[in-house]
């Protein structure tokens, strides 16, 4: 019976060139949905948690969800699941565009890439036909040029995923790009691709729709309801289309939680200059959208005469306030450079910010900087150091390209790195917004906001307004947000649908497409299971309880300026509450919790 899976996985061994077709384990798919959940379970079972992330033994799983490509809202998503070279723990980076949907239309739920190619290779997928082709001539090419060139070769109906020079050089903050400006950005997944000498994956498909839906009528009905909810909500109907995520610059600044100069301050006087409003006024060409997305949050902008993808809130903040820079045109340019080199546009500017603080403190000297000193707000430094991180040559280039944690450790000032599990934290100060600190500290992939977006209730008032300044109830909220997010990521929807949609809407869509009969509670329990399997992967990879932490600055140095002046994170209070809500002791699930969640195979591990 049709169930929204093609029940087919390709296992591609780049060392031997062997390509095997395997059947999807449907029971496992039911238990972990797909995408992030199923991908993590598969990676766990492959036994790679202890391997060197950049060795041929690591595996790369490109995986869709059951909803990827389905006729439902915002379903263009796929995920890259692997062991992260940045954090040494689980990586799951999610991207939109259309590549994921095409992979699914070509008939594949997932592809597992293992080994290491003897020479630079790219993979071509055309429905059932998978080939390994010579990529030597594309080596060193920027991401967009690679996209264009491979499309010229394979046809304009092809969709291209690739790494830029950063991934080729195994830069620990390298992203995987697809459809030109969409990125599986975080945790250095691009470096793993580079370590396998895999430059790109081109996908073509003859299907135009997902033709294995369990109950077409029910899906139509559930989609109609979901679309109504999205249309009636002002955020998803017009807010994100008009101003994108960039709108947050002014909001977060006005609540005194916009980290400035590497989190030394939390209110940026020049925020208006780098805001969504200013971006729209000066550079916006139009809104853009991923496959089947009615929300259209993406920005298409004009950067010095070139029409290209524009910055999200995160790079606006990271290249802006966090580096003490209010030149928006430079942020646009740096964001474009991140796309071109294939870099994480959060971790890279945050590492530059950390380096600027090291420079301010005298740890990095002017003579180390090869003519481009790391001064606060220096636009030249932002552009040049982004390029250097994307294509490192000197010793300091390489140090910078390994992320802020390793950089600051090297200079004996680990506290200057504003990271969790060696991954840089995003654009919300967890001293001024208490709940987001729980998300940062406990995120299985390190510093990240989209693993439980507490900004919704604490700042945006969705689904209800919580007091951002107090720790009360935040642990339980964070857990629920984390679990629901795990479900959305696993289904293959964009997380932004959740500004309007709730657990019931997702459950209805999932049941209609896959033929299950889950209740919303059961679906949230799957989310809980996914969060726990990620945690068990991390445990196997050597994670320690003290890795669930926040940088000392957030716990011990009160905010110095703006409306949240005087606040610190109350994580020591909320973390035990969170563990209790999860059924964890010392950061890991108890045997009882594992049993309850049906993760018996992890007991005693």
């Amino acid at each position, binding site marked *: 019976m049709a169930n929204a899976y093609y029940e087919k996985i390709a296992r591609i061994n780049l060392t031997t060139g062997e390509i095997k077709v395997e059947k999807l384990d449907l029971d496992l798919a039911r238990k972990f949905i797909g995408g992030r959940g199923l991908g993590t379970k598969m990676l766990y079972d492959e036994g790679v948690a202890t391997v060197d992330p950049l060795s041929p033994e690591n595996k790369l799983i490109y995986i869709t969800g059951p909803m990827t490509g389905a006729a439902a809202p915002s379903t263009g998503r796929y995920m890259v699941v692997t062991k992260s070279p940045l954090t040494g723990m689980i990586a799951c980076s999610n991207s939109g565009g259309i590549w994921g949907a095409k992979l699914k239309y070509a008939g594949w739920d997932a592809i597992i890439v293992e080994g290491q190619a003897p020479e630079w290779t790219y993979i071509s997928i055309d429905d059932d036909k998978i080939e390994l082709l010579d990529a030597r001539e594309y080596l060193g090419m920027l991401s967009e040029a690679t996209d264009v060139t491979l499309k010229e070769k394979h046809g304009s109906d092809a969709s291209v995923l690739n790494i830029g020079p950063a991934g080729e050089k195994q830069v620990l903050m390298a992203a995987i790009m697809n459809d030109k400006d969409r990125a599986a950005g975080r945790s250095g997944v691009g470096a793993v691709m580079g370590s396998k000498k895999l430059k790109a994956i081109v996908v073509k498909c003859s299907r135009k729709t997902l033709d294995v839906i369990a109950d077409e009528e029910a899906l139509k009905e559930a989609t109609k309801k979901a679309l109504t909810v999205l249309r009636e909500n*002002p955020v998803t109907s017009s807010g994100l289309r008009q101003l*994108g995520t960039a709108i947050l610059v*002014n909001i977060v600044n006005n*609540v005194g939680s916009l980290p400035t100069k590497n989190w030394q301050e939390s209110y940026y006087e020049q925020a208006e200059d780098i805001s*969504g409003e200013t971006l729209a006024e000066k550079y916006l060409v139009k809104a853009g959208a991923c496959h089947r997305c009615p929300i259209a949050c993406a920005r298409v902008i004009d950067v010095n005469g070139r029409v290209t993808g524009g910055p999200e*809130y995160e790079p606006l903040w990271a290249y802006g306030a966090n580096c003490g820079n209010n030149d928006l045109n430079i942020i646009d340019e740096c964001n474009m450079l991140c796309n071109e080199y294939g870099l994480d546009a959060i971790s890279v500017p945050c590492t530059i910010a950390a380096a600027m603080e090291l420079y301010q403190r005298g740890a990095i000297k002017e003579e180390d900087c090869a003519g481009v000193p790391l001064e606060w707000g220096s636009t030249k430094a932002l552009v040049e150091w982004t390029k250097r991180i994307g294509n490192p040559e000197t010793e300091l280039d390489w140090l910078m390209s390994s992320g802020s944690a390793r950089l600051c450790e090297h200079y004996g000032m680990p506290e200057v790195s504003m990271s969790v599990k060696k991954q840089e934290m995003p654009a919300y100060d967890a001293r001024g917004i208490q709940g987001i600190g729980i998300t940062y500290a406990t995120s299985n992939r390190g510093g990240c906001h*989209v693993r439980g977006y507490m900004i919704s209730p604490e700042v*945006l008032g969705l689904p209800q*307004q919580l007091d951002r300044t107090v720790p009360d109830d935040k642990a339980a909220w964070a857990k629920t947000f984390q679990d629901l997010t795990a479900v959305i990521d696993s289904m293959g929807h964009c997380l932004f649908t959740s500004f309007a949609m709730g657990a019931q809407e997702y459950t209805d869509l999932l049941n209609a497409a896959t033929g299950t009969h889950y209740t919303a509670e059961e679906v949230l329990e799957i989310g809980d299971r996914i969060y726990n399997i990620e945690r068990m992967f991390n445990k196997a990879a050597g994670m320690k309880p003290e890795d669930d932490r926040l940088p000392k600055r957030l716990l011990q140095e009160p905010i110095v300026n703006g409306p*949240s002046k005087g606040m610190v994170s109350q994580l020591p209070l909320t973390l035990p509450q969170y563990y209790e809500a999860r059924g964890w002791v010392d950061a890991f699930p108890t045997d009882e919790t594992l049993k309850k969640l049906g993760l018996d195979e992890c007991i005693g591990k």
Partner: protein
Amino acid sequence: MIEVRLFATLRQGREKIIMLESETVSTVGDILRKLDIPTEEVSILLVNGFHKKTETPVQDGDIVALFPPVGGG
């Protein structure tokens, strides 16, 4: 004086920052009426950086920031 900051679509046809004599308004609701902003168009309402309601009193020196419904991540 009270500083009123308007954002996103609330700026259409209005200034970004409006200074009001504190004697002329006593609550956030008064400010909305004075600026002809329908309550339902405002979803985030901050006084000195903290979320408040329309009935919240305002006084000299306050900064009031108003946003329409917005999201992001």
